[in-house]
């Protein structure tokens, strides 16, 4: 039933390549039948011989030779069609995998950006690449094999009527036992085993990660014991588990391999008893020989499915992860997008939690950001500063309350249109592997070269362009092109300057830029922020003393708000933070400040 399920879902992903899959399956089935027929040739050889018993010189040499070549030819046909089946199944597999990958990519692009904050790119990439690889093997090899293993018993039944149903029934017994054994082994595997292997695998993975990460500590503190112990225990537990599991399957596997190779054990008494019954002897002898010849084919195919079937489980797990991504809901689009009247930003009694049941990251927050002003968010990490910015940029939608831009609910705005009006700075400083020019023009594809160069100039990037081999045409990521974090930041600032969006969401860098870069970044920011509506997440309080509005966040609530002067006068949390801050900047290593 589970098998049906996975395969059924896979067929859904195949699209028009269902046709090649069907072709592959037909070929595989055909191959199995032709293969069977090759053995019929061998049977005919035996038949000729048996019938000329006593005087072999009367045998028709030419006929026998022809039968010999017939056998070879049919085997070739069988292999050829199986090869064709594999070719078609591979065409299907490669294309299906590509289709799944592309739909994953497209779907991921539709998801709220918050999804990407939670799911690291490495994890998503693994699902897009590795999980689909598992499906590839399933489609390309295992499906044709499954078809063969299903067709063969049917073909067998067909031959049964042609030759001798009694011996056929006898030979079907071990095959049936084999299937039952296989089913029970699979059941053992599916029931909790996959889960357990996964858990054991995760344990050892975590232990290995911790061990490798901790090596530097282990080395500098001369410690070898504890983290190594934990790792060792996990490794041992995993190996023991796998061995124990394998050993528990020992008898089942041995029995399976014995039984599928043991058809002769059923054929012999069947044949002898029939012979001893003394009816229609010639036919009995011939059928006996026919079956003796046929056995290996059955063995080959049954061995193959033993290997394939455990793969089904892996494929299933892979598919579950893929389906999970594809079932994530994309950001709902506005049915009738409203046009904002200016760019005042209002948060109206907004509450938000990252997960259902988790603590609220924002709890009934109201805030107004007037056009052309700067609002600074300060407070301890985890207080909700970034959440506010994320909600304005619609990384997520609020759970209660509304975010309004120019009196229009962000959810009622065309998302792409809104994103054109916002620059998000410092979220990440990744650049694309394209020229600096193209990187900067990213938000404004139609920009002229002059416009881009001007933006780069305003973002204080002249020194970067000078040192690079091809100036603004230098491709990022090429050999020998090294940019420091501060330099990358300036290029992304040039991007934002060129975009010239009226709203800027700014997360002040916590990473360290060196003195020169810091200075240049500040100058670039001056250019960017001029005349804009700005929301800034601040870490260094000195930068925001001229902000029009400073909000102090604590546990998802705005606990203080006002200008720098007002807040200092209030002698509350902000005043205390500012005092601490001033202490910290006057710190001198090795100075008298040490108590």
């Amino acid at each position, binding site marked *: 039933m589970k098998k049906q399920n996975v395969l059924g879902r896979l067929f859904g992903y195949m699209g028009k390549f269902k046709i090649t899959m069907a072709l592959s399956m037909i070929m595989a089935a055909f191959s199995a039948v032709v293969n069977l027929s090759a053995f019929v*040739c*061998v049977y005919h050889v035996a038949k000729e011989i048996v019938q000329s*018993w006593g005087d072999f010189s009367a*045998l028709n*040499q030419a006929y*026998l030779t022809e*039968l010999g070549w017939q056998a070879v030819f049919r085997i070739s046909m069988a292999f*050829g069609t199986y090869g064709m089946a594999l*070719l078609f199944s*591979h065409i299907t597999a490669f294309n299906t995998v*590509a289709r799944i990958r592309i739909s994953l*990519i497209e779907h*991921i*692009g539709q998801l709220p*950006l918050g999804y*990407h904050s939670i799911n690291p790119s*490495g994890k998503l990439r693994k699902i*897009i690449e590795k999980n689909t690889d598992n499906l590839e093997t399933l489609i390309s090899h295992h499906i044709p094999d499954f078809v063969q293993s299903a067709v063969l018993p049917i073909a067998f039944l067909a031959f049964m009527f042609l030759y001798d149903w009694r011996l056929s029934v006898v030979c079907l017994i071990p095959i049936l036992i084999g299937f039952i054994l296989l089913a029970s082994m699979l059941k053992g595997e599916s029931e909790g085993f996959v889960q357990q292997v996964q858990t054991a695998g995760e344990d*050892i993975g975590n232990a290995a990660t*911790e061990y*490798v990460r901790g*090596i530097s500590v282990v080395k*500098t503190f001369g410690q*070898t*014991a504890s983290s190594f112990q934990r790792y*060792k225990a996990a490794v*041992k537990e995993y190996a023991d588990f796998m061995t124990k599991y*394998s050993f528990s399957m*020992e008898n089942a596997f041995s029995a399976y*391999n*014995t039984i599928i190779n043991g058809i002769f*054990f059923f054929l*012999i008494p069947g044949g*002898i008893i029939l012979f*001893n019954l003394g009816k229609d002897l010639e036919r009995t002898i011939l059928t006996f020989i026919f079956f003796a010849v046929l056995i*290996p084919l059955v*063995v080959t195919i049954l061995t193959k499915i033993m290997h394939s079937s455990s793969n089904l489980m892996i494929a299933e797990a892979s598919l579950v992860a893929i389906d999970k991504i594809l079932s994530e809901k994309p950001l709902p689009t506005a049915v009738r997008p409203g046009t904002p009247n200016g760019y005042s930003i209002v948060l109206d009694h907004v509450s938000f939690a990252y997960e259902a049941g988790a603590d609220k990251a924002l709890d009934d927050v109201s805030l107004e950001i007037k056009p052309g*002003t*700067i609002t*600074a968010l300060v407070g*301890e990490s985890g207080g909700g500063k970034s959440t506010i910015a994320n909600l304005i*940029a619609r990384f997520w939608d609020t759970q209660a309350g509304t975010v309004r831009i120019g009196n229009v609910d962000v959810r009622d705005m065309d998302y792409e249109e809104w994103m054109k009006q916002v620059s998000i700075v410092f979220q990440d400083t*990744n650049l694309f592997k394209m020229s600096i020019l193209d990187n900067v023009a990213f938000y404004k594809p139609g920009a002229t070269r002059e416009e881009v160069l001007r933006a780069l100039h305003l973002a204080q990037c002249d020194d970067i362009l000078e040192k690079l081999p091809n100036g603004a045409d230098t491709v990022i990521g090429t050999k020998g092109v090294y940019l420091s974090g501060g330099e990358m930041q300036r290029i992304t600032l040039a991007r934002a300057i060129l975009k010239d969006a009226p709203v800027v969401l*700014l997360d002040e860098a916590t990473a*360290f*830029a*060196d003195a*020169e870069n810091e*200075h240049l970044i500040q100058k670039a920011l*001056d250019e960017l922020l*001029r*005349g804009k509506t*700005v929301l800034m997440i601040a870490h260094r309080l000195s930068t925001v003393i*001229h*902000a029009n509005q400073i909000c102090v966040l604590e546990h998802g609530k705005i606990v203080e708000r006002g200008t720098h002067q007002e807040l200092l006068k209030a002698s509350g949390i902000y005043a205390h933070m500012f005092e*601490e801050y001033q202490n910290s*900047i006057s710190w001198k290593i*090795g100075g008298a400040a*040490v*108590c």
Partner: protein
Amino acid sequence: MLKKILHLSDQGARTIKEASLWLTLFNLATLLPVILLALIADEMITNYFDGGRSSISLWGYWGIALVILAVMFHTYKVAYHKEYLTSGEEDMRLRMVLADKIRKLPLSYLGKRNLSDLTSIIMDDVTTLAHILSQTATELISGFLTGIAAVVILAFYDWRLDISLAACLPIVAGVMALSKLISERTNKKNKQRKLEVSDSLQEYLENIKVLRTAEKMRDYQRQVARKIKRVIPGLILYELLAGLTIAISYNIMRIGLGFVIIVGSTMLIAGKISLVKFLLFLFVAVRVYEPLTSACENLGELISALVSTGRIHDLLAYPEQTGQEGVAPQEFDISFDHVSFGYNDEDVLHDVSFTAKQGEITALVGPSGCGKSTLCKLAARFWDVQRGTVSIGGMDINGIAPETLLKNYSIVFQDVVLFNDTIYNNIKIGKEDATREEIIAAAKLARCDEFIQRLPQGYDTVIGENGKTLSGGERQRLSIARAFLKDAPIILLDESTASIDPENETKIQEAIGKLIQNKTVLIIAHKLRSIVECDKIVVLQEGRLVETGTHDKLMEQPGLYHKLYSLQNESLEWTVTTQSE
């Protein structure tokens, strides 16, 4: 050879060989019924045509059949047991060997390789290898052995039919070799294209926030999709080539069946062989190629696993750092004497000489990429210098075993490593035989005590993977507590560690201030205001030492330090505004 490729222990190699032999016995046992069947068929025919009409004795044949069945079961079981035993044991052994090896590598190696890369060797590559051990290797060996054994044994029975049977096998070997040659080239190109897909996928995912807010999303998706699709023709071509040659070789193998029929019948007509012999060869011919086919398939699998075993090999072959153990320097001046150093082909430091004196604070200053953190790491032998020497108290550190050397250092960098264990044990790493009092004292000195008290189980709270339940500043202070406990004479410090948690900056600063008293201190400095009272400031630019002296002395001259210091003071005054100029 297999032992070396698969990194087996002697014991493991032996067991795998034994398992292969048992599996060969199993395979041969599966061929045995052929004799039985041929004999029965012969008896039936003889009986029938002699008109004897006597019945055939069932029990004798069935008894033998049962014995063969039992042999099959037993041989398979033994082989299976040995396979999985080895696979389990080697899996464990290799993971321990790799872990031990990683421990002996220079710290720089760990910095250079990313974490997931190294763990994936321990995890994925070893798993691949274990799979090879549990199935592929034995089936490969036993497949070939069975094929050869069958051909050899049958030669004694009738060499002419045997030759007919095996005539085409050498050709197969040739075709297979040829196919490998052809497909390798296609494969290389495929790998290249797959890599491009990976890269662009990674780029796509990393930049998704940028893309989402730009209009180019569709274009970019289409571009990735194009790359994904571009891989397909090459893959199909490869499959066609590889599949075709494999199908051809398997076919060529089986031409032997035709030969057996033709040669056999001719000989039978000529009365040169008996019927039973002919039947026997006929029955054998339909199944003798299976083990060989399976061997070929497993060979393919082994070859594709070579990538994994190669990665394991590379790691195991990486040179370890060695040196004298148990030596203890008495003085702790750190001297750099004409030190030059580069990663790969890129030079990072050129001819740097200076001394960080015991009991003094030496600060390293310069623009990013100037080499200050490299210098700091060379002081602790994360790498070995390429030219010049680094010495402590006059002893060349290249001659001291890393673990002995590192006893003298406390290192406080930004990348704090914590274990998924209690706070108590995490601090205790600083000194294994520390008492509870000492640990609490260290925590207090590092200003950790107050946040630890707030945790549900205090010092016995488990802090999650790499301390993920703690804030950056708390993690940093725990690392400082460790350093207090260790109380090493040399301290390497990255000043930016103090700013990892802006809300708690002053607390970390206080902790650092206490930690570095009366030690040899080498600091990577970013905020120049914080180092004005240091004993010595070393200014670096593009890997060269350009200035050195105290703050006051350096400020007297219009050099790099002067410029950086002024710029930073300006930056400190900067505030955001929407109305600049």
